[in-house]
């Protein structure tokens, strides 16, 4: 809801502090999530995230939440989906070029970041260059993704780390090599 969204930006500082504590807890609970299985958790997490963040921020479920870097103003509500700052079309009254009835998401974002403290590292995250959106993540839980990244289960691009290559010379490998050599021999003999 638009009014709630504006409220959230006014309370960016508190909401960010809350989120940081929440994120810590989520990461700490990794053993539990792991036990249940991340796949299984995706649906319920996604639903909760959609409802709560939808209510507070008009969250669009991009799956790679940037709220902490955008003063708690969801950049996906910008009609141009800008994730790094305002376009040049912002109206004199601070409203959006495309939707004149809406305050520019990025004018809001800078206000929120200022509330979070531009000098402190939290608000200053607005200065980080955000890379392009990964469209494959749309509609997925960004909370679970944060935990998976923190625990090294995947990287920023969503790739799972490659399993460490089997050590050469391990007994299992040798057995496999031996078996294939045997098979070839048999083939030749036949």
């Amino acid at each position, binding site marked *: 809801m638009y009014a709630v969204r504006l409220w959230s930006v006014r309370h960016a500082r508190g909401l960010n502090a809350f989120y940081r504590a929440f994120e810590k807890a989520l990461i700490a609970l990794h053993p539990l999530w792991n036990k249940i299985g991340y796949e299984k958790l995706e649906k319920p997490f996604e639903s909760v995230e959609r409802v709560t963040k939808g209510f507070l921020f008009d969250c669009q479920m991009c799956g790679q939440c940037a709220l902490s870097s955008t003063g708690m103003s969801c950049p996906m509500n910008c009609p141009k989906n800008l994730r790094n700052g305002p376009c*040049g079309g912002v109206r004199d009254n601070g409203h959006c070029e495309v939707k004149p009835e809406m305050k520019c998401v990025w004018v809001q974002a800078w206000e929120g970041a200022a509330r979070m403290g531009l000098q402190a590292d939290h608000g200053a995250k607005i200065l980080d260059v955000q890379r392009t959106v990964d469209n494959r993540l749309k509609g997925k839980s960004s909370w679970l993704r944060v935990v998976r990244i923190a625990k090294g289960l995947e990287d920023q691009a969503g790739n799972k780390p490659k399993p460490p290559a089997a050590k050469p010379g391990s007994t299992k490998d040798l057995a496999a090599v031996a078996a294939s050599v045997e098979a070839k021999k048999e083939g030749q003999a036949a």
Partner: protein
Amino acid sequence: MNDGQAHFDPAAPLPLLPGHSSGGRLERVLRQGRFAVTAELNPPDSADPRDVYERALVLSEVCDAINATDASGANCHMSSVGICSLLTRAGYAVIMQISCRDRNRIAIQGDVLGAAAMGVANILCLTGDGVQAGDQPAAKPVFDFDSTSLLECITTMRDKGHFLSGRKLTTPPRVFLGAAANPFAPPYEYRAVHIAKKIAAGAQFIQTQYCFDVPLLRKFMDQVREQGLHKKAFFLIGVGPLPSARTARWMKNNVPGVHIPDAIIERMEKAKDQRAEGKQLAIDLIQEIKEIEGVSGVHVMAYRQEEFVNEIIQASGVMRNRQQRRAVEPAATS
């Protein structure tokens, strides 16, 4: 290079100088600390190359590079890639504009390679006006990139030699990268910080929106100098002649991001010959702007008034001492 000759072929690529990203003339002029002039070419609604050449001819005499716009104002015209291909073939220095509105990352990265192969030395990365502003409001807005992530992508292609996906390029594009700034739209106090971000993402030169409000520009440039941004990128300020008070009012209300103070509109209204007044206003603005510390040049946008660009630049005096430049450049820079 045809060293020592009085005449040189403008189409011959310039050798890459140490510390330069491109072989283009614009980067050289700016890095030599000269006041640079760029000008926007109004793209034709036609498939006739002569329409492009005629417009380029009047601009090229007075500018260091010609901007090829990419459906600016979300209006359909000949594409920036098309215009650049014509102009580079004829030896003009161009700035290819890329807007994020119409193409996704696959199309744009391909265009960057194609452009560099044609000899485009400068690329200006833009967000792009919303589709609602143009003649095709029913179009699907793409915005796969934003201007900052686009800058970051092309910087990666050029300096790290790979696509966004990580796939290697055999020859990276040698381009000088630009970004747009609009100091005349909110949030005013953060516009310079936003530019710092674009510079961090790879912007090397900045072209601004039309400037009709010098006090606001001064404030912006103060912030720029405070953060030392003028030492990291070259700032070219947008100027242009207003054809009439009526058009000025229309632009103010209908062109996204254009801010024209009422005092300027009044000045236009009071003038007997409004066209001449608009031209004089542009000259006055250039003279005032060029004195601001940290400004490296001007970017002239004369919508449907190309014939004025020459006069405006000559009258403003910014190209003084430059008449000799083209003839001696190869000897002077190699």
